[in-house]
Each structure stands twice: as structure tokens, then as C-alpha cells.
């Protein structure tokens, strides 16, 4: 009986700490949720004479995937993105982050290109405006041009079906 209070206090602390251990400290909420998508005025990877224009995409829910050819998980997610974006007819655009165009184009040629177009962010400044920590990252942008969701890490069919698509469907 004498030890009941310390025991309960200890168990409560243990539960709090165990719950804390389950959390991934790398998963941070994006500071840009519900904020307008920053201006991405950079040239397109495939048509360098044209510029990416986010304003033209207003009126639809779309996804922006930040990728690079030097990033292994980006290669891994490409086949999944190819199948899933086509299946669910979600407009998927890319941001080629701190990359060179030759290897970037080679990677798309090899693994397939899931993007309607990719904007070039050679120096990473657009990525910084988006608060990108590391590639790959995937943003869901609503019809008014606001960022509504961010996924860190590669997309597979589970992430697509359980995280990204519910957000897209709710916004559509």
C-alpha cells in the first residue's frame, strides 16, 4: 500500500515515455499546410524554354512530387507513381530538386515518367520555399492553390491509398 503512489507515478511515466518512443522525430508537420503554394517560376525539365506555372493548375486538386536522380528512394517510387497517378487520374507534377538535367532525364527514360511536367530546381531554392527537408516529398495542392498535405519519404501503394488519396478525394 505504501508503494502504490510511486508505482502508479512510475507506470504513468513509463507509458508516456514508451508512447514518445513510438513517434518518429523526423516526421514534422509542414509549416506550409494551408498556405498558398510558393511561386515556382522555374523552367521545365523537358521543355527548358517553358516555365512551370502553378496558377494555371488552379481549379483542380493536384500533387507535386519533389524528386532527384541522385536519390535512391525516388527511383523506387517512380514505378508506383506511374501506375497510381494514371489509375486514379490525379494530375502529378514533379520538382526536380538539386539535380542535373541529363541524369534526371535518363532516370525518367529508364523508369518511366509519371509527371505531366517537372520544374527544374537546380539550386534548391524552390525546395527551400517549400520547406523541403529531403527528397522524395509529395505535396497535395487544392483547387485554390493551397498546400493541404505533405508526405515525407517515398510513396508506395499503401501510402497512396491510405494517406494521399483520402486527402485528394476530400478536396475534390
Amino acid at each position, binding site marked *: 500500500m505504501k508503494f502504490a503512489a510511486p508505482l502508479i507515478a512510475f507506470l504513468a511515466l513509463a507509458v508516456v515515455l514508451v508512447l514518445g518512443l513510438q513517434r518518429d522525430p523526423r516526421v514534422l508537420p509542414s509549416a506550409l499546410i494551408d498556405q498558398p503554394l510558393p511561386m515556382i517560376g522555374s523552367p521545365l525539365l523537358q521543355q527548358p524554354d517553358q516555365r512551370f506555372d502553378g496558377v494555371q493548375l488552379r481549379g483542380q486538386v493536384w500533387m507535386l512530387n519533389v524528386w532527384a536522380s541522385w536519390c535512391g528512394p525516388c527511383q523506387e517510387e517512380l514505378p508506383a507513381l506511374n501506375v497510381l497517378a494514371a489509375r486514379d487520374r490525379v494530375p502529378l507534377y514533379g520538382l526536380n530538386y538539386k539535380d542535373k538535367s541529363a541524369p534526371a532525364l535518363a532516370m525518367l527514360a529508364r523508369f518511366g515518367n509519371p509527371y505531366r511536367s517537372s520544374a527544374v530546381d537546380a539550386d534548391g531554392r524552390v525546395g527551400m520555399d517549400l520547406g523541403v*527537408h529531403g527528397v522524395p516529398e509529395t505535396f497535395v495542392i487544392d483547387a485554390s492553390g493551397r498546400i493541404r498535405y505533405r508526405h515525407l519519404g517515398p510513396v508506395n501503394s499503401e501510402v497512396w491509398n491510405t494517406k494521399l488519396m483520402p486527402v485528394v478525394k476530400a478536396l475534390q
Partner: protein
Amino acid sequence: MIGKLAVIVVWMLLQGMGLAQASDGDIALEARELKLAGQLRCVVCQNQTVAESNAPLAADMRNVIRTQLQAGRTEREIVDFFEQRYGAFVHYSPPFQASTWLLWIGPFALAIIGLTVLIAVLRRRMAHAEPAPLTEAQRTRARQLLDEESNL
């Protein structure tokens, strides 16, 4: 000949002064850059500041700090710039806000609770500290022991 030498020496002195001035400015800028970078967290390698980290993102952030300082932005504006993009987490020393008050106040609150409990327990012990009076048997025993001691 001497005239030529003098011209060269004066030219070299001027060059040296110019260099010294430029590097003074550079050193001041670098010091401000490092000071700011030391206040910001590298979001990739979370327990390092932007100044300490070797991550490419931290290098980008240092470059941005430098260009913004050169453009005359204040330190407050530069920190806000990063906070808008990476959230309050980017402060290496977290600001006092709804999600961090427990972090700031918690240790002091725990210390106060601990001290209060300690004082309460000690007071109670002091109150019960009055020793019970010795029984007659104990008294004789004690006297015997003391006598033995003095006889030695």
C-alpha cells in the same frame, strides 16, 4: 630607379590596405552569418545547428543567410524567413508557445513539487522526532555501560 621602387612599395601598401579592409568586412559578415546559423536547427540532422552541420541543406541555408545579410535584411527577418518554411522547429532554442510551455516550465515545476514534498516529509519527521522517555531498565543498562567505560 628609386622612384620606381617607391611607387611599387606605395602601390603594394595600398593593395595591402584594400585587402585588409575587404577581409574586415568579410570577417564581420561571416561572424554574423555564423551567429545566425548557430541559432537555427538543421532540419535534416536534427540535433545540430545549421552552423555545425555538414548536410547539403545546411550549406544551402548558410548561403541564404549570407546573401540575405548582404542584401541588408535584419536577423529577425532572416529567422522569420526560415520559420515560415520549416516551422518553429527551426529555432535551435525553441520559442515559448502552446506546444513548448511544458518543455520550458516542466523542469522548474518538477523541482518545486519535489522540494515541497521533501519539506513536508521532513517537517512531519521533525514533529515525530521527540524520543520516547527511557524505561527504568534502559536507564540502569546505560549507567552500567558508562561505568564500564570510566573503569577502563
